[in-house]
């Protein structure tokens, strides 16, 4: 798989971009300090002009400042943290839960499958952005929902995105399991006396790794965009934590200040594109029928 991925130039470049982005996210405080930028939530009233409008790129603020006088460059760098951590966390949650549900439905078939599949259909039919807005508002009151387990801010966003993503994984896994369970090695495990749990975890899940990897790489950029959309609408990540979507949302109220919209937009575009192209490359590398 690795050797075949290396032959795909676009995928290799995307991989480096993704690695770079992750490094930026992890090292954000260091990078900001290195370039002598102000902290992302430092409100410099001197950087705003006399009408209280944000100002463009200067020596001290290379990408300009927002309407509160916060440095755009610094906020974009910190925004990578939120974007990536929310996307990766919610994808991981979707994968774990979706795989569990899909394997159970596919292995037991019958009425278990019927109930699970209909519930997934209901979830898939939901206008998920509406659900997200509703959940976000409900969980943002007081101590959050689920007895304080899900607090407003990042945890709510992760939960919403995970709920939106897992039915797709569950469906794909269920389909794969339906075909896998007919293989004789599953019969062999049954005739040995292996329990259903053992068969599902030890025999089925290891054979699902390739399709799950492929689908997760498609899910990551989707989730980045979803987080941006929620934050853009003001129900996602809350101020003062910076997120690209939320910066775009703020910028849309000040359309004359181009720097304010351009840089978080570019960051979002690069990230989503890199993950998508990497996913494409992985899909080709893992698909044995597609040889170049």
């Amino acid at each position, binding site marked *: 798989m690795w050797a075949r991925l290396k032959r795909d130039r676009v995928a290799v470049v995307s991989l480096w971009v993704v690695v770079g982005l992750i490094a930026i996210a992890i090292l954000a405080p260091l990078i900001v300090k290195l370039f002598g930028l102000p902290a992302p939530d430092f409100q410099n009233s001197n950087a705003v002009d006399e009408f209280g409008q944000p100002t463009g790129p200067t020596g001290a603020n290379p990408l300009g400042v927002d309407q509160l006088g916060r440095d755009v460059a610094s906020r974009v760098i910190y925004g990578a943290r939120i974007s990536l951590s929310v996307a990766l966390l919610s994808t991981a949650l979707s994968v774990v839960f979706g795989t569990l549900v899909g394997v159970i439905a596919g292995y037991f078939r019958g009425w278990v499958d019927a109930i699970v599949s209909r519930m997934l259909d209901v979830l898939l039919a939901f206008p998920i952005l509406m659900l997200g807005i509703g959940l976000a508002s409900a969980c943002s009151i007081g101590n959050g929902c689920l007895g304080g387990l899900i607090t407003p801010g990042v945890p709510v966003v992760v939960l919403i995105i995970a709920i939106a993503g897992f039915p797709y994984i569950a469906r794909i896994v269920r389909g794969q399991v339906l075909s896998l369970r007919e*293989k004789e*090695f599953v*019969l*062999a495990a049954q*005739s*040995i*006396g292996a329990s259903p749990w053992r068969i599902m975890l030890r*025999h089925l899940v*290891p*054979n699902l790794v390739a399709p799950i990897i492929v689908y997760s790489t498609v899910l990551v950029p989707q989730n980045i965009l979803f987080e941006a959309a929620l934050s853009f609408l003001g129900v996602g990540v809350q101020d003062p934590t910076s997120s690209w979507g939320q910066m775009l949302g703020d910028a849309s109220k000040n359309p004359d200040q181009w720097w304010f919209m351009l840089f978080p937009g570019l960051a979002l575009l690069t990230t989503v594109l890199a993950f998508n192209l990497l996913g494409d490359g992985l899909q080709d590398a893992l698909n044995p029928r597609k040889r170049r």
Partner: protein
Amino acid sequence: MSAADEQSPARDAILEVRDLRKTFGSGGGVLGGNHEQVHAVNGVSFDVLRGETFGLVGESGCGKSTTARMICRLEEPTSGEIRFEGTDVAKMGRKQLLPFRRDVQMVFQDPYSSLNPRHTVGSIIGEPFIVHGVAKDAKERTKRVQDLMDLVGLNPEHYNRLPHEFSGGQRQRIGIARALALEPKLLIADEPVSALDVSIQAQILNLLRRLQRDLGLSLLFIAHDLSVVRYMCDRIAVMFAGEIVEMADSAQLFAAPQHEYTQRLLDAVPIPEPGARKRQREQQAEIDGVGVAAAEG
């Protein structure tokens, strides 16, 4: 063969199958639908005696594999009875099922799909030990797995290899080793050589014969190839369209087939000698001619 003969207590049967039936078909579903049903196995009865090799032959789709799977309780019979050492298999609870699984093991048809491609040979053969809590110590397990590999003619050093690194014949040996791990009393071999090259078939058949003799196994051997069954089995049942049409000792069946379907099956076996078939036909015509002449005279 009479019913009394079949059920006489003098013969020590390890497995008794009585009037076994399996019907597949759309249950109709919520909307009714068509109630087409397929009688995959339609009233099959036979015994497997302790220590013998019992053959089940028939064309593909005649219900052989379904019968085998029902005996292993991988599929539920629609009706009928399966008794293993006197105990009804269908009525076993979870507690009895585990010892039953120890005693009855299966070798599968396709050595390419019967081994999990992600597991090493060691963990495939060692899995029965883990499931049944035998040889809990990892070192002891490795030792026993390697003994088994040696027993079936595999190099024990290949312990950590994956199935795709082996040939079809070697893979089938892995499958046999797995089935033998728990020292079963009854081994069910469901077309164990039909997916293999002819040159490899003999090796696997000889291995099964040797193991059967050395370990004192009872063997239920399923095949569609008559010459294979003839080589392996003491007694043979011929299945056609879900029913047993003839059951006899191996020698007897091949010498004097009673049922029309058995005769057709035997006729379909090629005779490895040029002109043999033609000679046979001429001899038959001669006998018929004499008969006619005698009748006329």
